[in-house]
């Protein structure tokens, strides 16, 4: 007990000591940055960077709404950002401190303005689509050589799922995104807020539920790369990271990402500064650092997600900027849709449905 007390006291004293140097605390998605950039920021600015990661918008939102998270920069997705702005969780950006803001891409800024009018509270970090990651060899083995690798039929039709179950299928543990996909599959409005329409997705999900190995929002990267699973509903860049890891491991696994032919959701991860950030000044420095074309290009080249920074585009590697899975062709863009936040009541309907689907009862 005494030892415990001593260690605690030492930790507190140490914490106080460390706090004397300027620090910025960033809370970002997992597997979402080239870690060399973190070091670069520290050497350039002399600020200590404390970098934590999460893998669900829900966890981030709870921290934001509880207040006092202690973070200076956080990265919610569009719909979540919009709701948290309403709750007063963020402070307006001081654009005079952001000399690189002119590098941002107006096409993306226009789209993110639907969540954050005038982009007053946030800058776009990365954006992408939610689609289908497959192990090409295994899926063809199970379903034949001419199977469409970009169709929702692959993972929402029980006949196909039954054959894929053996090699393993993961779904994102992100209820709002999966519900939107199933609504699109049913020919309904993916952004529907009508509980009765949303309820229709239950039947589709329950029919394929027995064949889903796991609901998880980050493990599928490694699972795909190692060949442990053959298909996953996932986020574009994550699947492409899996493709890359498999390629590097040279394990004979070929991973492909496709947006759904039926239409995919487009999402935006936005960097914002919490209203109670301990170091808003440092946070602005971090945002400005991220908006530097070279830094943003390095990040995208590393994580295979498209970014909202137009000036970074000439610096992107060819396999990033020319890959339609990352920067979709205009044809695909027409097929993409965006969603808006649920009210608390509808959110409860969706969560309840999700609990039911996940527990399979």
């Amino acid at each position, binding site marked *: 007990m005494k030892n415990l007390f001593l260690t605690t006291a030492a930790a507190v004293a140490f914490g106080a000591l460390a706090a004397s140097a300027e620090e910025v605390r960033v809370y970002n998605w997992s597997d979402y940055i080239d870690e060399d950039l973190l070091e670069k920021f520290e050497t350039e600015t002399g600020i200590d960077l404390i970098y934590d990661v999460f893998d*669900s918008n*829900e*966890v981030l*939102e*709870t921290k*934001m*709404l*509880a*207040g006092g998270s202690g973070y200076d920069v956080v990265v919610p997705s569009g719909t979540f950002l919009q*709701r948290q702005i*309403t*709750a*007063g*969780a963020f402070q307006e950006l001081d654009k005079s401190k952001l000399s690189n803001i002119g590098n941002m891409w107006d096409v993306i800024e226009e789209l993110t303005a639907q969540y954050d009018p005038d982009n007053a509270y946030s800058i776009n970090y990365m954006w992408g689509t939610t689609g289908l990651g497959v192990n090409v060899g295994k899926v063809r083995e199970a379903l034949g050589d001419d199977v469409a690798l970009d169709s929702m039929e692959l993972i929402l039709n029980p006949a196909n799922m039954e054959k894929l179950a053996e090699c393993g299928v993961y779904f994102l543990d992100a*209820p709002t995104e999966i519900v939107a996909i199933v609504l699109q599959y049913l020919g309904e409005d993916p952004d529907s807020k009508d509980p009765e329409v949303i309820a229709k997705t239950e039947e589709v999900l329950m029919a394929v539920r027995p064949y889903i190995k*796991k*609901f998880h929002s980050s493990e599928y990267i490694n699972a795909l790369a190692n060949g442990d699973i053959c298909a996953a509903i996932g986020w574009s860049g994550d699947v492409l990271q899996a493709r890359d890891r498999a390629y590097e491991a040279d394990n004979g696994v070929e991973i492909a990402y496709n947006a759904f032919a039926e239409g995919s959701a487009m999402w935006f991860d936005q960097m914002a500064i919490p*209203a109670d950030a301990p170091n808003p000044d440092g946070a602005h420095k971090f945002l400005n650092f991220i908006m530097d074309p070279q830094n943003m290009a390095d990040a995208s080249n590393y994580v295979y997600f498209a970014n909202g920074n137009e000036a970074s585009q000439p610096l992107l590697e060819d396999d990033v900027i020319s890959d339609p899975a990352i920067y979709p062709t205009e044809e695909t863009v027409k097929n993409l849709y965006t969603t808006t936040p649920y009210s*608390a009541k509808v*959110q*409860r309907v969706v*969560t*309840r449905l*999700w*609990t*039911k689907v*996940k*527990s*399979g*009862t």
Partner: protein
Amino acid sequence: MRRKVLILVPYLWLLALFLIPFAIVFKISLSDTELAIPPYTPTLDLSDGWNGFKEFLSELDFENFEFLTTDDLYWKAYLSSLQIAVISTVLTLFVGYPIAYGMANAPDHWRPTLLMLVILPFWTSFLIRVYSWMGILSTEGYLNQLLLSIGVISEPLTILNTNIAVYIGIVYTYLPFMILPIYSALERLDGSLLEAAEDLGCSRASAFWLVTVPLSKSGIIAGCFLVFIPALGEFVIPSLLGGSKTLMIGKVLFEEFFSNRDWPVASAVAVILLLILIIPIILFQRNEQKQREAEG
């Protein structure tokens, strides 16, 4: 006077670390959700004095508790948590008692080492230990590799992401909490009582059941409480080792809190969980006390 001060210490402890937090949770359970920081309303504002307090009280209601009765998810989760907690407590007792018994009967100079060995796992983070069970129990994990290589099974067993993995995790994690109180009860046991029982014609087995077990009852009860109470609200073990079919109230609480952002309903779930725990414990203690008085 001195005695009063001494009694005051545990009561202050109880007040600061149990009653006040509980009052806060209970208050939130009577509130309504709101999109704000913090995400519920009303919050206590004493700037208006007494009127502000009255207004605050008038806005509280039991709606969230009523809500819990409208959806079968909640009582199903309570029941399945109770089931998992009871079964794992019994399993832990069966595994823990022989270990404690062996320790108490070991030669004196071994006991400190044995005791140390029981506590040793605590030197590693709980989370890391649970994670390593994932490595042991997964389909390609060490356990399956071992069983396959010695030919016990021909197909790998699916243990991870099932309730069996949850039981293994709980028994493993809470075993020391069962062993330690039972050991301390058995260690105090007067050996001459056993000799007397055998002198009076008891076989060793019946002496164990008639003398050892009843005299270690206090240790068994303490151990069972120490395992059962945390197991009932367990969140980490079912979410890491359990499958999506494992329904436990800890996970429901997490969903209410994180996915629904509904702190009031989450608090209501927590208050009920506490009642489920406290009422039987109080009844049990009353009963014990009555028995003691009757004996005394």
